[in-house]
């Protein structure tokens, strides 16, 4: 099925309005971009949109109730809901530093769930 989709490129603050021809979810042609990055962005965003998840996990026995965390890299947008549910079930009981891995290979997505601040005992 051939469709035309509109996207705003977010690679830089210019925010080019892209017009993308797609066929069954595959990018066929792009217009409206002012640079090469627009093309890459559109292809990624249409074919496999990715997001970094930032949220919090609960801590026990530490001076803070909530510890901020992130995925170490972007994950598929479609997985955000599942990822946030998994993070809600995660608990930290030991001190962490920024970049301490909380969950290795988070949901088999090839990224880790990592702390983004230090919290000592």
């Amino acid at each position: 099925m051939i469709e035309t989709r509109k996207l705003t490129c977010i690679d830089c603050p210019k925010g080019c309005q892209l017009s993308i021809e797609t066929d069954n979810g595959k990018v066929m042609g792009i217009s409206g971009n002012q640079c090469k990055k627009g093309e890459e962005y559109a292809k990624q965003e249409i074919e496999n949109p990715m997001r970094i998840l930032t949220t919090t996990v609960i801590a026990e026995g530490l001076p803070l109730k909530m510890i901020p965390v992130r995925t170490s890299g972007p994950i598929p947008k479609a997985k955000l809901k599942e990822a946030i549910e998994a993070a809600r079930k995660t608990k930290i009981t030991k001190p962490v530093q920024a970049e301490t891995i909380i969950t290795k290979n988070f949901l088999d997505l090839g990224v880790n769930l990592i702390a983004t601040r230090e919290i000592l005992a």
Partner: protein
Amino acid sequence: MIKRELIVVGGGPAGMAAALSAYENGVKDILLLERDQFLGGILNQCIHTGFGLQHFKEDLTGPEFADRLIIKIKAIKADKAIEVSLQSFVVKLTDRKVVTYLKPGKFEEVQAKAIIMATGCRERTREMIPIPGDRPAGIFSAGLAQKMINIEGWLPGKEVVIIGSGDIGLIMARRFTLEGAKVKAVVEIQKESRGLVRNIVQCVQDFDIPLYFRHKIKRIIGHDRVEKVEVVAVDENLNEKPETAFDITCDTVLVSVGLIPENELIEMAGAEIEDLNTTSIPGIFSCGNSYKVYDLADSVTRDSEKAGKQAAEYLKRI
């Protein structure tokens, strides 16, 4: 009275950057006062990414950005070169550079040779717009709601209308959605958002949240808790078009309509903000969001480093 070369008030990015830069420029007797129990300021509750692209050339979250500065401060081992005093709340500043602060069990007055105020900003409120109607529970500034969710682990509301489409409002739209609440609308009186395109896409469009431009909240309705808001379209002169009015039921209204520098201590000392980081009293500086409201923590850090240098130069001169 205790004497210090330099006192920095505020341990957010501005205060930390200013203290570090003053140290690097030769000041070795610095007292950094932070009212919270941690350094980092508001960055600690800004758990989303988008920080540090300019300053650290990396896409960091707020806490990570803060952490980089905290690590640098902790790395300075020289005794009292940068002494950090937490839970320390400044209540008074005089034109003679006496700082009075409180911390649990302590009421201290310190004489400084130079002072850098890095007290950040506060949010504009519903009362400043002003929005008429009831005054029930369920009306929050965006920053307060952010603190409740990210620091306290509370969910302030389940059906949310957000006023203002600046970055903070957009970020909170996503945060509420991820936490399981329904964001029913973002209402913006201007014809476009002041926020980053990236935030419009990833915080609002990603979750199909309706974004109303050229609309305003006419009234907040609710006896005990917010029950609904009345929304109305406005023309290009921001005059209401009464025939367009409609209600949105919700239990929460988030107000995200701008920030104001916190300058009350500087006013107390009788000083006025002048050129970049300086005030009308030589040796009293103001940097970061208490100097002016910045868009990016990166710019705050850059300009606050200048404040540290300015203070160091002032101390060499006197």
